[in-house]
């Protein structure tokens, strides 16, 4: 079927949009134009091996851990009935609200010799401040990415395939591994890819636990050695890893079609015997470790501080955080929709490239990204001021780098890949036959998008918006560097106090991040629940 060519301006605008969001990638790759840094021999002979090894092991552990926990929980919740299933279904999302650096602080407090758990435990509790401990922390807060996307994939999977498998005599395990899992693979892989990118970019946790990784290595090279070039080139190593990951993932499902018809999934099977309580306990564990215990610890710490709860200053922290998070969620959603749907409606190699390029913001450690944004916006502001001054107007000041624009722009670059991947996976499940039918009925691309794609993509849209919102709420390094004067957020405040080793004082803003994060989680759970009920009605 022939595709109508888009007007040139529209293609141009799309490319410009993608370019703006691919800036960090370009800056980092551009660093090689200056030739390799003179510090490479030093890095090679001393620390580089450790950085790479630690990052690799962290990725392996966190990737495997989140894959098992996330997919396992999603499957049990979607396919079986057991006590507490309804509560666990949304409770499993709760750790999403907890930033990794915060859970690292609280678990350190919980497990400390003088902490609350050791007083009860008859044996010495393990030391978590090492590489494996860091992986543990990351798994606890990152598994919901896999869970969320896998659950959504399992839910929207057609019941037909599973029914057929059953009538052909496939057992429960076989139906899972040979039918459901391959069908859900794009979503699961997208989830794990997000987890791996978060892991590679994580700075707070590994820094606190003293694990030297590529991410901490970039900071150290940048600021300790004062070598921008080597730092940017090191960052390109991170991006290359991401590139390989994404490429492998795409290659693996190149010739697979995962779109299915919309027949509702089969009725949930009740679990019997010991399996039912085992499932309940097993699914409670991640919620307990990733949310409930840390939250209790924070509440205990914050109890003394409760008087500040309603202070004007604290309310301002909350409103700033919510404002930045909502703006970022809206921006990324709009940009991702534009890129993804244009890719689907008007496929060209260039736009596909753009889609790939914008994904890399996620793998950039926040400070590196922030500095890239500072460079670009600073240059833009300088040009604007000089031009206007040259024309005899008053200088407008730093309208880009000195306002919330900078924060929202940086966070959008960082998190754009979430809606982009989510929507792409969503689109992948929409049958192309629908497009063809709509087009043959004379539907224009825009009306096809608005009347067919948008309603069907409601869930991935909502899911991605939620993820970006919560992620931005937790985002720290970029916000810290780029925020305008006198603009504090919850994460900034929590971090400032925690990094000053005033954990107890940090508890109140930290708790607020958790609570603010719960709200959209609850909304999402409700909305998914409604849809779910409709299926089972």
């Amino acid at each position, binding site marked *: 079927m022939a595709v109508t060519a888009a007007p040139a301006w529209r293609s141009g605008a799309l490319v410009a949009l993608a370019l703006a969001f691919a800036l960090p990638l370009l800056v980092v790759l551009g660093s090689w134009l200056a030739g390799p840094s003179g510090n490479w021999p*030093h890095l090679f002979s*001393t*620390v580089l091996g*450790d950085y790479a090894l630690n990052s690799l092991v962290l990725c392996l552990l966190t990737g495997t851990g989140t894959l098992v926990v996330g997919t396992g929980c999603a499957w049990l919740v979607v396919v079986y009935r057991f006590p507490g299933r309804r509560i666990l279904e949304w409770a499993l999302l709760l750790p999403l609200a907890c930033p990794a650096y915060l859970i690292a602080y609280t678990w*350190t407090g919980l497990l400390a*010799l*003088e902490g609350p758990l050791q007083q009860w435990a008859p044996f010495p509790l393990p030391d978590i*401040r*090492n590489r494996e401990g860091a992986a543990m922390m990351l798994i606890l807060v990152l598994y919901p990415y896999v869970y969320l996307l896998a659950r959504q994939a399992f839910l929207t999977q057609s019941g037909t395939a599973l029914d057929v498998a059953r009538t052909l005599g496939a057992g429960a395990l076989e139906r899972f591994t040979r039918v459901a899992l391959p069908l859900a693979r794009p979503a699961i892989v997208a989830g794990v890819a997000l987890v791996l990118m978060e892991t590679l970019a994580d700075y707070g946790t590994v*820094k*606190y*636990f*003293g694990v*030297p990784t590529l991410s*901490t290595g970039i*900071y*150290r090279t*940048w*600021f*300790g*050695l*004062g070598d921008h070039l080597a730092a940017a080139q090191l960052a390109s190593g991170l991006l290359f890893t991401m590139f390989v990951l994404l490429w492998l993932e795409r290659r693996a499902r190149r010739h697979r079609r995962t779109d299915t018809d919309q027949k509702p999934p089969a009725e949930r099977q009740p679990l019997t015997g010991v399996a039912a309580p085992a499932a309940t306990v097993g699914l409670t564990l991640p919620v307990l470790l990733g949310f409930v215990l840390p939250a209790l610890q924070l509440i205990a710490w914050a109890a003394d501080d409760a008087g500040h709860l309603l202070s004007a200053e604290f309310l301002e922290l909350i409103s700033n955080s919510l*404002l930045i998070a909502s703006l970022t969620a*809206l*921006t990324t959603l*709009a940009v991702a929709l534009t890129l993804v749907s244009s890719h689907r409606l008007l496929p060209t190699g260039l736009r596909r490239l753009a889609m790939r390029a914008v994904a890399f913001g996620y793998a950039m450690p926040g400070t590196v990204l922030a*500095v890239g944004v*500072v460079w670009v*916006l*600073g*240059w833009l*502001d*300088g040009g604007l*001021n000089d031009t206007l001054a040259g024309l005899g107007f*008053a*200088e*407008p*000041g*730093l309208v880009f*780098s*000195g*306002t*919330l624009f900078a924060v*929202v722009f940086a966070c959008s670059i960082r998190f754009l890949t979430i809606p982009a991947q989510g929507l792409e996976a969503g689109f992948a499940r929409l049958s192309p036959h629908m497009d063809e039918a709509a087009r043959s009925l004379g539907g224009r691309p825009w009306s096809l998008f608005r009347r067919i794609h948008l309603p069907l993509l409601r869930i991935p849209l909502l899911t991605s918006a939620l993820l970006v919102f919560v992620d931005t709420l937790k985002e720290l*390094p970029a916000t810290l*560097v780029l*925020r*305008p*004067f*006198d*603009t*504090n957020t919850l994460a*900034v405040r929590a971090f*400032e*106090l925690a*990094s*000053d*080793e005033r954990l*107890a*004082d940090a508890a109140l803003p930290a708790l607020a991040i958790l609570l603010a994060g719960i709200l959209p989680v609850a909304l999402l759970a409700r909305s998914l629940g409604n849809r779910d009920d409709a299926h089972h009605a």
Partner: protein
Amino acid sequence: MRWTLLTLLSLTLLAGCDQPGPETDNGEAAAKEVNVYSARKEALIQPLLDRFTEKTGTEVNLITGGADALIERMESEGEHSPADLLLTVDAGRLYRARQADLLQKADSETLRNAVPEQYRHPEGYWHGLSVRSRVLVVAPDRVPANAPSRYADLADERWQDRICIRSSNNIYNQSLVASLIAHKGEEATEQWARGLVENMARSPQGGDRDQILAVANDLCDIAVVNTYYLAMMHNSDDQTQREAAEQVALRWPNQNDRGAHVNISGAGVARHAPHPEQARALLEFLVNDESQQWYAEVNNEYPVKEDVAISETLREWGDYKADDLPLVRLGENNDKAVRLMDRAGWQ
């Protein structure tokens, strides 16, 4: 339609965030504000800034953040930067800002009289505001009274697996090593660092308070920490912290030779400051007796200014001899120090 509305809404919200900066210079209120980029945490500087506003009527706008990131931001903002004053918590970063040509001279009799020569830039590009020392903290029941008495002793074999110290990413450790390089040369310092790494009880982790807790909990016998962390634990609301601080003893290093390593928090006026006069006024305010005393009381740091009362905890620790190495040298040796720690395997 809905998107258009949302976009409009977003733009309105963005525009609604007031942005102090050079453009307000033309306005009437221009003379009445000063913009501070601070690596010192908000809680530890805002009260002083509020006091400044109260006394002078000058509004203070504040951004806090990591010193390195703030310096990068100033660099990219260039001549349009709204920054008037850069505040950092170590001399190395001020040195770096000066090297990047981000500061201007701020010289006045008030500043010269208040800040001893050792704690300011020779030409007045930056001034120290408060002093802290990096000291040894030991478990008195497991460590003899006469040793270790110098930084050099930390490399001694007898302390194998008994020392806790945080990561070499930390600027305080980098500055300490930079000072050793200045005194002993690179080769001797590298030998020392290798010995110290051998003696570490665990791979470096956590902050200074964590090292003190580790000594209190028998995980190691000796830790290297900044004075105010120990002092703040002594005065903490948290019982665990207070008890840990009680269980350990402070050792001033190198009292029989060059003195204990010290560093400063300090500030410099930005090169392109839109309000240089107010910036200098604020700098002078920060070294007056009242501010200096506030630093000492609230943050348990040593005032740069002589004859200002120190906190009770610090008084109990008594006088100490401070290394009189000019702090510029810490900045000069910083990247040598980082490389050296890399080679020694100090994580």
